């Protein structure tokens, strides 16, 4: 899978990076280009290699193969303290024996700033993360959200072209996380710094990222804007990672003009978009919210269960072949819902059905 090139020259460029730990390949031939000012999310389950990829860029690990370039300069052999990128750690890694201001100003040494310039920069950063007045505090005396903002300010102090964020919101509770997402985006837009964010949370990735790269067992399987990934996932893994999905197994029909194909399934023929050789075993992926309940000409089934979720209703429908499909309808609805046990029909719109490799 090759990532589409951003229009201008890339800020960060990873070329076929591979990293092994003993027999385990943590990162497997990853190539990727990032544009300046972009927020890029590396998304995947824990242990998939996304954090290792971040640590390779920061310089804490050395790749077994491949090259890392920033603005065209090769970083691969540079130790971490010589790399013009900075990192915000998952644990924040605030130095417990230094004040908040000393933490934020730690990276300024060796930047040939005057004492006043350095103090000014710290002051501005404290303002940026809204922590004025906390300069002399010890990091232990801060709340989780405040610690997160100190970590962010500290990582931004050297004005890196690229900021690496390892699960930046992972340690915060849910309400704080949503608020902080917005703040993080606002700060990023104001500074124009490129962000690479590692997260295992698809909602977070979709909320933050300009583009998302999905990593599965060390490989970059798909790169693109959230909506592309959601609507046109490259495989079942990506489809399932970004949200609930119905997968219907079948066999792909012959090529047709107009892009749509017919898939023969146990439920009957389904029209879907996608590529593949005629006769190949495939799955048709349909998001629950795109399934239409009721209406004429759908596939017959029985309503098994209905769950009220506040803003929508989720239904489970038993199909003729014994499989179960999940549908989700937004509230309020114009038509009344059928009762549990009633016969219903399920419509699968062709523009919502994707052909994926089995």
């Amino acid at each position, binding site marked *: 899978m090759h990532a589409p090139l951003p229009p201008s020259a890339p800020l960060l460029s990873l070329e076929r990076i591979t990293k092994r730990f003993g027999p385990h390949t943590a990162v497997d031939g990853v190539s990727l280009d990032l544009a300046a000012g972009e927020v890029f999310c590396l998304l995947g389950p824990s242990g998939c290699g996304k954090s290792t990829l971040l640590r390779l860029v920061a310089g804490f690990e050395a790749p077994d193969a491949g090259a890392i370039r920033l603005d065209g300069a090769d970083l691969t052999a540079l130790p971490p*303290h010589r790399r013009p990128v900075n990192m915000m750690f998952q644990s924040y890694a605030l130095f417990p024996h230094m004040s908040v201001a000393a933490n934020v100003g730690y990276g300024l040494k060796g930047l040939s700033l005057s004492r006043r310039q350095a103090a000014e920069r710290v002051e501005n950063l404290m303002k940026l993360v809204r922590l004025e007045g906390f300069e002399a505090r010890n990091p232990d005396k801060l709340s989780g959200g405040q610690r997160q903002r100190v970590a962010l300010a500290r990582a931004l102090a050297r004005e890196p072209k690229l900021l690496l964020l390892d699960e930046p919101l992972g340690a915060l509770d849910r309400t704080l996380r949503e608020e902080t997402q917005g703040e993080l985006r606002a700060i990023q837009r104001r500074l124009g710094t490129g962000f690479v964010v590692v997260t295992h949370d698809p909602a977070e990735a979709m909320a933050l990222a300009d583009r998302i790269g999905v990593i599965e067992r060390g490989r970059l399987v798909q790169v693109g804007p959230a909506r592309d990934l959601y609507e046109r996932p490259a495989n079942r893994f990506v489809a399932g990672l970004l949200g609930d999905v119905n997968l219907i197994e079948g066999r792909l029909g012959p090529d047709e003009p107009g892009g749509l194909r017919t898939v023969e399934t146990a439920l009957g023929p389904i029209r879907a978009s996608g590529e593949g050789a005629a006769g190949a075993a495939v799955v048709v992926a349909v998001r629950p919210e795109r399934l239409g309940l009721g209406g004429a000409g759908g596939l017959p089934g029985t309503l098994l269960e209905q769950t009220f979720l506040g803003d929508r209703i989720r239904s489970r429908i038993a199909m003729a072949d014994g499989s179960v499909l999940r549908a989700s309808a937004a509230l309020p609805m114009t038509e009344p819902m059928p009762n549990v046990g009633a016969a219903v029909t399920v419509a699968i719109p062709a523009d919502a059905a994707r052909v994926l490799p089995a």
Partner: protein
Amino acid sequence: MSAFARTALGLALVFLYAPILVLVVYSFNDSKLVTVWGGFSTRWYAVLFADGPLIAAALVSLKVALLSAAIAGVLGTLAALALDRHGRFRGRGAYTGLLYAPMVMPEVITGLSLLLLFVGIGLDRGIATIVIAHATFATGFVAVVVGARLKGLDRSLEEAAADLGASPARVFFGITLPLIAPSVAAGFLLAFTLSLDDLVIASFVSGPGATTLPMRLYSQVRLGVNPEINAASTLMIATVGLVVLAASWLTARRGQGA
């Protein structure tokens, strides 16, 4: 089980402290007989402070303890860093064994073999040889104490410093060392105490003119129970007690993040 275990704990503590208590109480005994109470008195402390050889021995002990603890502190910290940071280097198992073996080695063996070495290479026996011997067996203890702290240290703190442009030297002296400093101090204190405490090894490797406090006390203890030794012991226990109290007070304060 619980009541039984709690009783066992209580008895164990009594067992641990009763002899020390007896020692302290009888240091204030006016009688020369250690087992007969003859009224409260501080006369044995007066005797103690007039005992020139004993005080000289105490000074030798202090000097030896300071020097050997300083050497063991450096060597033990380096060894702990090597074991924690250098990963699975070749000969790591042997390295660990060599580091920890002196801790459990019977003192008579360590003492005798070091003496034979010193005689073999013609090194004059005295304070220097005791310092070398004590530093050798205390290094492992320091390494254990510092190693435990290093293990609990969040690696990302050092990575964050490197990420913010700090050179390896600045990371070590600005981040790692301050964060493990309490354990280095604890290791130093442990090495210091072990040195002050040692009789057997010092007896082997010391020469004329280098009599440590335990050696001096031992020569008197061999002659039987003596209230002056009780007084000396009480002072030593009080010193240790104060140091332990101060250390726990310091760590408690640090724990509050003041």
